[in-house]
């Protein structure tokens, strides 16, 4: 009976299955399919990462040691869930409206986007979570070893360290693969969430199966089971009041504060309505998870030999009864609990580490120039991937260093108590406008220190890190500073003692410092927005723009959000303001919206810093504004209205100014039309006349000279003809009399043709293309389209002023439109010229060029006839033109 080998096989197939599920879910989400991905059921199941291996295996052990006390771990979250109207609803709303990425981000955003606070929370979260990850790895290795011991056929026991290492590597890989596919938190981790939901089902099913087997298989029915419980060591209800209340409160607090819970509950939340389902479904899930715990514990204590580890009853009971299949299922349940916890914790922590530690440092090191020039997106992704690997590795190292064992088993509650330190700052921030950054920092600091001293360090066992004398006589020999009897409170349970003192001192310093300190204006603004999130979904002014350069902002945003997303975002904003093109007015509303959009990718503090680097001294005016407007809501509202009005006026003025500018420019050009056309016609005629006179009047011309001069005449005559052709072409196009010659053709062939006609990549002019994307079949007037391409390539050739001129032709598809971007690496077109380049006879500067400034005007007319368009794409460094074409060109004919 090769149980171990079967187990390994099943385990590997399960992992492959998880990868497949995650992959499929990601793909489905990408293609907009799979509405089931967005169901409240999936959301509820994803919350089940609360039940880790510690609860899967440990609950039974907990019950075997202290009876019903284990229920507190589930009752706390149940109370929080059914009380969702109080807190969770608000947290989720804030998380969505402020585009929060992690609990560190939430706390930092609330207290004036303070990065100090974010770093502090991040460190605390990492310290609190690392042992917990170690615990998961340990549970997997331990259960594996249990199997190996039971399997008599296996000759050698698997090396525990290598098992743990393999599991850690696998988990890191999975998390990096599916957890860092998107940078923006708004695009949620569908694959990961789906895999977790599946694991939630597996672990519940496994535990229920073991429970059913124990009750009806081993004990012989419900009544017999109850008798066994009554006969066991845990028959009596004797739960200490302090622990019952203390642990329930602790688990409730941890449920709100655990970074991984925050990740699934707030960050991955798609729809606030899901919370309503989770409000009853998740407590039901928890109830089912804990239903069979006591029976399993009681029967295990009864059946299994004295001294067997109660933490593994879930596994050893079926093994002992020879039910290998059930044991493997149970193993999978534990495995699921462990892996899902590690995956989500790693995602949550890596987001915090990269957004609040790595990115600010990197931005600081690159001195802000990176905001515009560097590739922020890649750095952020890399930082996140490295953080994930680092965090999982840290868990593994912790396991190795601590040596596992019983010290680790107690870490669950220790870890809970650690993250619970966020609670005062978190809850205070949500309900109390007076809470300040300094208060939050002090509260967290004090709570963290007390937790470290009273619970975390002693958890390694007395005299391992802290010397024994400390436990006996206190710090510096002061007996009231003994870690387990602070201020002389003796005889209390260690966990309850630490939780009580840390939370008490944490809250007290938080409240006290908040009362005596004075918040900065940004803090007050954020405080008002958080506390009253339901009152104004719209926002009070924050950025006063004007100084901001929309184009710089766009360049920066493209680096972070990705070019198509940023362009879509800017275009939408411009449209809302009633402006054409891609550059909206940098109004406060827009800047704030942009900041939120960016904070989804890089965190609130970083996004704020980035925008303020571009917008410049705008923060000052916000603070001024706030100082005046913060005190009374009426004044604020009134000033908001005024501000909105004056913005409205400013915008109208800008629109008028723009229209006027364009008109003036156009009229100057129309006025110049005659002199332009005169110039364009006279220049070639001058050469023709001069050389024909030379040929006529000069007798002693050499044959070479003769042929040279006649060919000049010929060339200039052709130039004249071309000019007239263009003029005619344009007038025909403009009058809409053109007949389109539609054919089917491949975009690649068309581009090949255009490139060849314009001289290809000859000289030092390089053309970069992505042929795989160009395999698009078009039904359109191919010759006309080629004319546009030729014009654009020829323009790039002519005007690109880079040392190594280079033209990138990029093809992409968006909805039912085909986008072909022609981007060169020259100095581009100045913003004030961008609006007129498509007008007739407009040329940039007065440069001598073969054309008459009709090319782009013709292109524009052609594209309009073909049912598409051509636009100038700002913010691409060089000059960039985007040709848009409908993909099903059947209806392009007019």
């Amino acid at each position: 009976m090769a149980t171990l080998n079967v187990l390994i096989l099943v385990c590997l197939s399960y992992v492959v299955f998880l990868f497949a599920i995650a992959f499929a879910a990601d793909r489905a989400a990408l293609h907009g399919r799979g509405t089931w991905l967005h169901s409240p059921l999936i959301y509820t199941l994803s919350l089940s990462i609360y039940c880790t291996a510690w609860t899967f295996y440990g609950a039974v052990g907990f019950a075997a040691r202290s009876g019903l006390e284990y229920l507190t771990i589930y009752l706390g979250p149940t109370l929080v869930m059914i009380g969702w109207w109080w807190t969770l609803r608000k947290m989720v709303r804030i998380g969505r409206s402020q585009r929060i990425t992690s609990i560190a981000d939430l706390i930092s955003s609330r207290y004036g986007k303070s990065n100090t606070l974010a770093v502090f929370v991040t460190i605390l979260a990492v310290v609190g979570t690392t042992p917990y990850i170690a615990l998961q790895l340990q549970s997997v290795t331990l259960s594996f070893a249990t199997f190996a011991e039971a399997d008599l056929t296996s000759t050698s026991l698997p090396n525990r360290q290598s098992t743990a290492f393999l599991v850690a590597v696998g988990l890191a890989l999975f998390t990096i693969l599916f957890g860092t596919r998107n940078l923006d938190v708004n695009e949620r981790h569908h694959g990961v969430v789906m895999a977790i939901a599946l694991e939630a089902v597996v672990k519940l099913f496994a535990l229920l199966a073991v429970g059913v087997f124990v009750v009806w298989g081993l004990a012989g029915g419900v009544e017999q089971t109850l008798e066994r419980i009554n006969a066991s060591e845990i028959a009596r209800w004797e739960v200490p009041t302090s622990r019952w209340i203390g642990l329930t409160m602790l688990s409730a607090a941890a449920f709100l504060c655990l970074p991984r819970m925050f990740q699934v509950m707030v960050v991955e939340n798609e729809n606030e309505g899901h919370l309503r389902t989770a409000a009853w479904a998740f407590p039901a899930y928890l109830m089912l998870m804990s239903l069979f715990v006591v029976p399993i514990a009681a029967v295990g204590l009864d059946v299994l030999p004295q001294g067997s580890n109660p933490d593994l009853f879930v596994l050893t009971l079926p093994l002992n009864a020879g039910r290998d299949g059930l044991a493997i299922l149970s193993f999978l349940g534990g495995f699921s609990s462990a892996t899902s916890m590690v995956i989500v914790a790693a995602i949550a922590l890596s987001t915090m580490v990269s957004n609040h530690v790595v990115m600010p440092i990197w931005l600081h090191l690159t001195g802000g120039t990176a905001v515009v020039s560097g590739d922020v997106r890649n750095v952020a992704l890399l930082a996140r991937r490295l953080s994930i690997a680092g965090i999982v590795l840290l868990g593994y190292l912790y396991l190795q260093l601590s040596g596992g064992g019983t010290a680790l088993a107690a870490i669950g509650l220790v870890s809970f108590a650690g993250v619970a330190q966020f609670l005062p700052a978190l809850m205070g921030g949500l309900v109390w406008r007076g809470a300040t950054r300094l208060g939050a920092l002090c509260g967290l600091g004090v709570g963290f220190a007390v937790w470290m001293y009273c619970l975390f360090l002693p958890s390694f066992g007395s005299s391992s890190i802290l010397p024994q004398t400390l436990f006996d006589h206190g710090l510096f020999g002061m007996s009231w500073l003994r870690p387990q009897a602070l201020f002389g409170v003796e005889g209390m349970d260690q966990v309850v003692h630490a939780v009580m003192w840390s939370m008490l001192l944490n809250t007290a310093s938080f409240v006290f410092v908040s009362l005596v300190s004075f918040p900065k204006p940004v803090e007050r603004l954020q405080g008002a927005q958080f506390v009253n999130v339901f009152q104004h979904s719209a926002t009070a002014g924050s950025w006063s723009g004007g100084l901001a350069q929309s184009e710089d902002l766009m360049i920066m945003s493209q680096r972070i959000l990705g070019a198509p997303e940023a362009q879509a975002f800017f275009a939408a904003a411009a449209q809302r303001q009633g402006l054409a093109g891609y550059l909206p007015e940098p109004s406060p509303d827009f800047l704030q919206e942009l900041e939120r959009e960016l904070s989804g990718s890089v965190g609130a503090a970083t996004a704020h810093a980035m925008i303020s680097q571009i917008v410049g001294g705008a923060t000052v005016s916000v603070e001024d504004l706030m100082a005046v407007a913060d005190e009374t809501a009426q004044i604020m509202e009134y000033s908001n209205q005024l501000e909105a009005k004056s913005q409205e006026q400013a915008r109208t003025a800008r629109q008028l100014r723009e229209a006027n500018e364009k008109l003036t420019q156009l009229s100057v050009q129309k006025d110049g039309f005659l002199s332009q056309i005169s110039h364009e016609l006279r220049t070639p005629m001058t050469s023709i006349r001069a050389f024909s006179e030379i040929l006529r009047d000069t007798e002693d011309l050499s044959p070479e000279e003769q042929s040279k001069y006649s060919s000049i005449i010929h060339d200039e005559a052709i130039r004249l003809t071309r000019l007239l052709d263009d003029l005619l072409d344009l007038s025909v196009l403009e009058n809409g009399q053109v007949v389109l010659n539609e054919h089917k053709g491949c975009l690649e062939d068309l581009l090949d043709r255009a490139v060849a006609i314009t001289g290809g990549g000859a000289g030092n002019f390089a053309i970069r293309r992505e042929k795989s994307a160009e395999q698009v079949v078009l039904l359109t007037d191919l010759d006309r389209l080629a004319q546009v391409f030729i014009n654009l390539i020829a323009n790039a050739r002519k005007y690109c002023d880079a040392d190594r001129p280079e033209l990138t032709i990029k093809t992409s598809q968006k909805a039912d439109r085909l986008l072909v971007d022609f981007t060169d690496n020259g100095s581009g077109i100045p913003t004030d010229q961008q609006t007129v380049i498509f007008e007739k006879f407009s040329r940039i500067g007065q440069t001598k060029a073969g054309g008459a400034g009709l090319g782009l005007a013709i292109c524009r007319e052609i594209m309009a006839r073909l049912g598409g368009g051509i636009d100038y794409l700002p913010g691409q460094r060089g000059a960039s033109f985007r040709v848009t074409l409908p993909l099903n060109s059947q209806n392009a004919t007019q």
Partner: protein
Amino acid sequence: MKSKSGPVFLERRTYRRRRMIDAARLLPVLGIILVSIPLLWNGTPDPHTRTTYAMFYLFVVWIILVALSAIISRYLGPNESDEQSLGDR
């Protein structure tokens, strides 16, 4: 806070909804009380001090809480946006 004192009498639907919100707020309070009751049994003689008895009690409480929460959630439909300000204060 800025209370633009609303109408004194509300539509029947709105009124129902507000009471449901009250219920949603009270539910965790009820939960805390029910979950704490077993603490009173500490030190009393049998049969209350049996684990099985407490277990039954707690799981029944649990199921009741789940059911109440489900009912309340059903009535607090997704049309919450129309009176957000109520939710807060």
